[in-house]
Structures are given as C-alpha cells and as structure tokens.
C-alpha cells in the first residue's frame, strides 16, 4: 500500500490511507526525502490519523523521516496520532523525541506556516 504524496504550495502532504507494513513505511520515508529536494518543498506533513498501531519500528521510521527531511532543508510535522495510540506509545517508551507533532492536518499547516515564515518572508 503506497502512500500518496500531494504537493500543496511549498508543502508535501503524505496522507496514510491504511495499515502500513515496514516496507511501506521505509518507502514513504525515502520518497519524502527525495521529493523534498525535487519539488523544493519547505515543509512536510505526515497524516497518521488512520494508523491504529504505532509500534517501535513505525515510530523510529517516522523519527528518521523527520530528521532526514530536516537535513534536506524541510520541516516535518506528524499529525493525527490518535489518543489510544499515543497511550500505547508512551507505555512502550516511544516519545518521538525531536519530532514535531500537531493535532490534525489544519493544525499541522498552521504550525508549518509559522515555522517556515522567516524563510518565506525573505523570498
């Protein structure tokens, strides 16, 4: 199940549609790291609303994704972590340290607007 990646202005939005295997997650990570450069994106939103499980691998891969895109010059925000998923993650000790998160897509866009404001106002 490939994750569709949409370009919206200077942002890329990856909206996860169904449960993902490890391979799907790795593909998403690599596709975003590549597209950030090719499409000259300044921000990335990964919407995980439909994910009903976030285990250690998913958590680590999303963290790597955020750090990789930052190294490529774009900010990433993870949106839509469900309350019961957040609870499981905390119990497991997965905190997504160093990764920005927001409640939903709307909040994610607002967050990115703020975060990338300085650089856009110069352009």
């Amino acid at each position, binding site marked *: 199940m490939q994750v569709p990646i949409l370009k919206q202005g200077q942002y890329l939005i990856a909206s996860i549609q169904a*449960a*993902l*295997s*490890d*391979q799907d997650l790795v593909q998403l990570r690599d596709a975003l790291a590549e597209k950030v450069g090719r499409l000259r994106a300044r921000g990335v939103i990964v919407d995980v609303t439909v994910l*009903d*499980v*976030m*285990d*250690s*691998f998913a*958590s*680590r891969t999303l*963290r790597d994704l955020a750090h990789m895109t930052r190294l490529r010059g774009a900010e990433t925000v993870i949106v839509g972590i469900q*309350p*019961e*998923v957040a*609870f*499981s993650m905390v*119990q*497991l*000790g*997965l*905190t997504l*340290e160093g990764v920005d998160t927001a409640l939903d897509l709307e909040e994610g866009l607002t967050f990115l607007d703020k975060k990338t404001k300085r650089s856009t106002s110069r352009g």
Partner: protein
Amino acid sequence: MASETIFSIYTDVDIVLARQKGRELASELGFALTDSTLIATAISELARNIVLYAKQGEIVIKNSLVGDRVCIVVVARDKGPGIADIPQAMQDGFSTSGGLGLGLPGVKRLVDEFHLVSDANSGTTITIKKWKR
C-alpha cells in the same frame, strides 16, 4: 466462544496481519478501544522480534474464560537463538525509544501478564495476557 488463531510469522506483512487479528478479536470480545490498541501493539512488537531475531516463528492468539472473566492470550514462539541474558533484556531503557533492542519491558507494560521462557536450544516463547475490564 473460544477461538484460536495461529499465524506463521515470517515477513513484515505477517506482523500487520497478526496484530489486526488481535485487535479484531479484542473488539469482538468487547475490549475497550484503548485495550484493543495495547493488545495490537504488543502483538506487533512480539511479531517484530520474531522476524528480527529468529527469522520465523508463530503467534497464537486466543481468548480464554476464567470464571466469568474474559482474557486474550497471545503466545509468541520461535526456535531462534534464544535470549542470552534475560535480566538484561527485561531491563528498562535497554531498548526503548525505538532502539534495536527487544523492547520487552515496554511490551510488559502494555499487558496484564507477561511470561518469558528462552534458552539457546529451544528458542523463545513469550506468553502475554490481557484481561477485559
């Protein structure tokens, strides 16, 4: 009422199938959403350990009735190399934050009962149990 499903665990896709079954059974039995999520997440971690460390194994998911209390039992079995240092593997911080460790202390926190048997000759069997509240 009692059901038992056995999954062969070999690839990352098997991990997803096993945890989906766990969630399905939990919600059929009337477990709360939070507890269903904890069960699915625990299955995911156990199946992942099988793929990572033993290459293959199986996950058995079943329900059980003790008196009038319902629980889900998950058994993760492999004939892999076994866990050399169990106390270390059960130490917190050994593998959290998505590190490369087994994450077993985390799994233990997700469930009500956790039982681990492992040695180099016969592999590893982990049994977890979650009671319906």
